[in-house]
């Protein structure tokens, strides 16, 4: 099992450009999450999904959109990138049997917006 994978690993964008980050998991997990991690701020939840076709806002959703068209994939979109979105983005998934189950994280995407 590959677990949780993220593409790309690194990306540099100019202000105003758009991009999509892809997260894939092969564990048949119901729940998927997108976080951003900034120095001194810890992991902050952007959006999450509790099943295929569902999405919900987390703590810091502004400037991001998500889609969960297939159970194994969770996409994070930036429509018009801003320097404040420079961060490391982590995707995670967890088993839907219990909503407190451990989260499995991907390796992260380092995004720089110039």
């Amino acid at each position, binding site marked *: 099992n590959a677990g*949780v994978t993220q593409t790309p690993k690194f990306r540099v964008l100019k202000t105003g450009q758009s991009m999509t980050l892809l997260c894939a998991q092969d564990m048949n997990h119901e729940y998927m999450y997108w976080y951003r991690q900034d120095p001194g701020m810890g992991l902050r939840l952007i959006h999450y999904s509790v099943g295929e076709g569902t999405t919900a806002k987390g703590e810091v959703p502004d400037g991001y959109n998500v889609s969960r068209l297939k159970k194994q994939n969770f996409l994070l979109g930036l429509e018009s990138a801003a320097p404040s979105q420079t961060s490391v983005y982590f995707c995670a998934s967890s088993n839907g049997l219990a909503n407190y189950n451990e989260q499995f994280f991907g390796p992260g995407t380092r995004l720089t917006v110039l």
Partner: protein
Amino acid sequence: SQKIEQNSEALNIQEGKTATLTCNYTNYSPAYLQWYRQDPGRGPVFLLLIRENEKEKRKERLKVTFDTTLKQSLFHITASQPADSATYLCALHTSGTYKYIFGTGTRLKVLA
């Protein structure tokens, strides 16, 4: 306001000693608390979960305590090794939600 606090200062400890990391929270009533380990350039990895009605949980050299009166969790690594050097994150989960709120993490360095 709701807050989760972990020691922002790095913790240096001599090999073989017990490392103790602290997670304090305010204005939460967590039902569960998790601890994760994160190495540089990698995603967090789950270590332990403890429920609100559990006082203590152990796994090999790891021990977690959860005091809902003090609003605090302590994470202990006994017989610490240089390989235990990493950042450790606590995360709170409240009943009725699908999400965890993470602390900022404490960086642990075990000196040989």
